């Protein structure tokens, strides 16, 4: 694609972006969140139409009005969220996308075809299994096969490793190499540098909607790529030094809870966090980490077990009890849970403390609220924020700073933090990590839930690993390896 520009009101998401992917290569598209990666891919797959620029496939210019056009042009996409029919088998799902499949499906024959494809791509999958029986990694393989069987010559994968264990990611990279060797073109969208270095032949770096550079991975270092991506030199983050560790502040014993669909999401979880300690919670997304954070903070009622703060039992399912006991919470879904998006930044700053010093009797002291907001905006360096603007206008990083500012300024005893840096750019991640380090140094007991193992290894003292709602292992963050944790995450150790 050449000179592609896509504008949205107020922003130019892609500004004169050019991308050239050769036959038989794995090409990484690297950029921070908001750099325009997803917009570019939506242009390539026919979801958006570019305002300027053109797209060629195999030397022929193509016009992509819809995803159907893109598929016809041989462009296949594997989204972060899979598009599979859960109640059908692997072979049936693939046949749905296969334009060469006969009208009357012969089950045996279809399964045979899938087996051949699976073998050719080194992707072991049982073609007769129903989708809902498969792990997330296996479902992703089905998505890839679907794209291949529908005749894709260019395969685009959007952040494919976000839902995988390290071992599954390795297997995926093997498959991508095989596909490239067979003449497919693979585009890997990612913000993880080590993936780029590991699997890609070339990499195009996007920053602020522009394509900054296209380089061979064999000719650059990881740090050079990071600097290209961020636009300045970045120091690799140092591991947090263990601080002074005090008494147990937050303790859970035998917690169980149901998930949103009514099935058991949490089974007999016990853990304790001491003052000044960072306890990491690792696991592949959807293994009970979110429910754990919600039960600890009273948002979700427990079906069994107790939560104690400083030895005192919290009332179950009552967020106000947790807040009063000094448990601050940075929720995973910051836009819908962490803030009231249409309300002002000032309102969101006092979301939990409006009953306290910013009110007199039933009345709010609006001036004091505005002053409080202005002070926190300054202290936490929330750029571009004014107290009366609606919170939803803030970028992800600045929104997270508001949430952190509010939670930290309540002088909590314990802090439950879920996916605090998901979707943030490198600069914001550094800031958020800095605040977490400071909190632990101040003697706050921090429970950090994250899917990013690097983040956990950098910040945590201990790491517990969750699998299918239970804690399957605990490791010392200073002695553990990614492989060890990965095996626990996969539920095999």
């Amino acid at each position, binding site marked *: 694609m050449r000179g592609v520009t896509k504008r949205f009101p107020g922003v130019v998401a892609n500004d004169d972006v050019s991308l050239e992917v050769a036959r038989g290569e794995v090409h990484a598209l690297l950029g921070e969140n908001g750099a325009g990666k997803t917009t570019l891919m939506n242009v390539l797959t026919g979801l958006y139409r570019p305002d300027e620029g053109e797209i060629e496939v195999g030397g022929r210019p193509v016009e992509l009005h819809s995803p159907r056009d893109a598929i016809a042009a041989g462009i296949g996409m594997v989204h972060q969220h899979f598009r599979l029919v859960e109640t059908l088998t692997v072979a049936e799902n693939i046949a749905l996308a296969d334009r060469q499949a006969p009208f009357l499906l012969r089950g045996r024959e279809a399964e045979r075809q899938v087996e051949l494809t699976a073998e050719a791509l080194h992707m072991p999958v049982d073609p007769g299994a129903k989708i809902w029986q498969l792990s997330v990694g296996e479902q992703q393989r089905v998505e890839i096969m679907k794209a291949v069987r529908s005749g894709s010559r260019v395969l685009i994968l959007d952040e494919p490793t976000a839902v995988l264990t390290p071992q599954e990611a390795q297997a995926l990279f093997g498959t991508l190499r095989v596909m490239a060797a067979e003449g497919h073109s693979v585009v890997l969208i990612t913000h993880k540098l080590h993936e780029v270095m590991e699997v890609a032949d070339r990499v195009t770096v996007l920053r602020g909607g522009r394509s900054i550079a296209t380089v061979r991975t064999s000719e650059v270092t990881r740090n050079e790529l990071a600097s290209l991506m961020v636009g300045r030199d970045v120091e690799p983050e140092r591991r947090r030094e263990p601080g002074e560790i005090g008494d147990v502040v937050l303790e859970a014993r035998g917690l169980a809870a149901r998930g949103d669909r009514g099935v058991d999401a949490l089974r007999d979880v016990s853990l304790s966090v001491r003052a000044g300690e960072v306890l990491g919670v690792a696991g592949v997304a959807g293994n009970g980490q979110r429910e754990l954070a919600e039960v600890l903070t009273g948002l979700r009622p427990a079906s069994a077990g107790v939560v104690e703060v400083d030895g005192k039992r919290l009332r179950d399912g009552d*967020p106000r009890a947790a807040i*009063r006991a000094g448990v601050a919470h940075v929720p995973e879904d910051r836009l819908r849970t*962490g803030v009231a998006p249409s309300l002002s930044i000032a309102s969101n700053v006092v979301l*939990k403390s409006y*009953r306290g010093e910013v009110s007199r009797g039933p009345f709010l002291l609006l001036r004091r609220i505005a002053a409080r907001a202005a002070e926190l905006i300054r202290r936490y360096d929330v750029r571009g924020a004014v107290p009366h603007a609606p919170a939803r206008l803030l970028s992800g990083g600045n929104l997270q700073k508001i949430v952190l500012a509010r939670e930290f300024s309540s002088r909590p005893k314990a802090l439950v933090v879920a996916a605090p840096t998901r979707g943030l750019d490198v600069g914001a991640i550094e800031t958020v990590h800095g605040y977490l380090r400071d909190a632990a140094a101040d003697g706050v007991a921090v429970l950090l839930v994250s899917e990013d193992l690097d983040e956990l290894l950098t910040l945590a003292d201990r790491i517990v690993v969750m699998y299918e709602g239970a804690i399957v292992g605990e490791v010392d963050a200073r002695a553990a390896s990614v492989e060890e944790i990965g095996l626990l995450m996969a539920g095999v150790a």
Partner: protein
Amino acid sequence: MRIERRLVQRRWLPVAVPIGSLIVAFGAIAVVLLVTGHAPLPTFRRLFDAAFVADGAVTNTLISATPLAFTGLAAAVAFRMRLFNIGAEGQLYFGAIGAAGIALLLAGQSTWLIIPAMIVAGAALGAAWGAIPGVLRAFAHTNEIITSLMLNYVAALVLNYLIFDSLSYWRDTSATGQLFPQGKTLPDAAAWPTFTLGSVTVPFGFVVAIVVAAVVWVLYTRTRFGFETQVIGDSPRAARYAGMRTRRKIVAVLCLSGAIAGIGGASQDGDFRHVLDARGLQQANYGYTGIVVAALARYNPFATVLVAFLLGGLENAGYTLQGADFPSGLVGMMQGIILFAMLGGELLVRYRVVIERSGSVGAAEATT
């Protein structure tokens, strides 16, 4: 052609759109008037005249506007928290029942006692009727739209029962009352006062509505209660996360909404009808029109009173306009088109219509 959500809100839109809507509405009305053989411009003149200019026009407009201000405020209070209380109609009936009952009970007492008692009784019964959908919503997760709507029919049946189907305390049991069922006339001391401003007579109820609007404004912008309703309305998850007692607030807001509608019912008894007027209240549809009032005012309490005044004018002018040469159906049509255009225009404030020419992109590419 597609309809998209606006990504950027333009400042002039909330002003320009209603004006544009009115122009469109009057254009459409002009067409219908021409087809039916009426001259549009003189008709518009007469309409405006009868609503706001002629002798006694504003007085009559205020009479039409007072109940709409109450039901509009009732709707606005609930809708602000995304609680869709469609039950102002029934809550107003109950307010009227309560106020009439207490006025009859206190017959012979001072007017200083009776009028406050009517307001309190109207508010209390309206709140009680509003509490039913509130409790059901908060504790049983039923949809308050359906329950509050259904309770309107129940309230209407109660009203009919009290006046037509029983010898209740509210029914006139004299000889004529036996023959033609009607409510007992309220004592003279229960008649609400009026204020004269130049040539305009302002009913006490309208003054009460303005006071209620001010109280609602303070409540919603300056108090912890209002802050909580704002958060709950915007994001119930965030409210729960912040430790707010969501269920209590749902009940409280629906009670408040019902209480305001109930005062509207008391005002009907005290200001205008001086009797529990079962048939008249049911014909007026104040509760449903109040929803339109609140929507046009974007749930702002002061704007609600203003919109009630304008819609009251439209309604009042309708009575004046209709006659032998101007059928009432035509009046209804005019009112309908104006409301339709105003509400339809609201869509344009938040959404925009995109017209796509399918050939344009292809043509641009062909030339490069």
